[in-house]
């Protein structure tokens, strides 16, 4: 049973556009939602995260919008750059738990 769902599976945008990656979850017990960025041949690296008490988190060109009522969140990448081309994973975790549950990822391609 997949607890974290991501869409789309693949996304192609032009350089300079805003890429929007979506994520939904099922278990309300989790309160920590990180997004990880992964380049081929490397491990995932934390990009940005949000706690469920917030509805928005911004870090440079990256913004998470969080809707607790609908159990949805999205990652917006403004002014997309070719170097942003990677796979992005949404995950859920808890302050008292170590494990992270990952989605299947969105592969982002930014065309120059």
């Amino acid at each position, binding site marked *: 049973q997949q607890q974290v769902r991501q869409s789309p599976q693949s996304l192609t945008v032009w350089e300079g556009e805003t890429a929007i990656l979506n994520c939904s979850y099922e278990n309300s017990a989790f309160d920590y939602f990180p997004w990880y960025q992964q380049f081929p041949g490397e491990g*995932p690296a934390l990009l940005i*995260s949000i706690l469920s008490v917030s509805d928005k988190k911004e870090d440079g060109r990256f913004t998470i919008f969080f809707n607790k009522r609908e159990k949805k969140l999205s990652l917006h990448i403004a002014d997309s750059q070719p170097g942003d081309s990677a796979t992005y994973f949404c995950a859920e975790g808890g*302050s008292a738990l*170590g494990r992270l549950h*990952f989605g299947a990822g969105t592969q982002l391609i930014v065309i120059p």
Partner: protein
Amino acid sequence: GPKVLQIPSHQIIDMGQMVTLNCDPVSNHLYFYWYKQILGQQMEFLVNFYNGKVMEKSKLFKDQFSVERPDGSYFTLKIQPTALEDSAVYFCASSWGLGGGEQYFGPGTRLTVL
């Protein structure tokens, strides 16, 4: 930034053999994790480890799996014996704290069981 190293990057073994995957976590981290990713699927939690003990494990962490970190050296995942379904990429991660603390991931070990 902090790096987690994994050795080897790729391992090919015959079904039934034993394999040990090695992880060199970030030096001051206290919590250690293994995740498994089958090709084309999401990464799935296997186990976490703290203070010499398994804290939590998933149903994927079969009886054939074991973890240890002897004398603060490598954090290891041992599979004995291996099965075909163990073929996957195994990611090690470490963190200073739990939950909202950032987990740093290694580049993964691709295990192929023939």
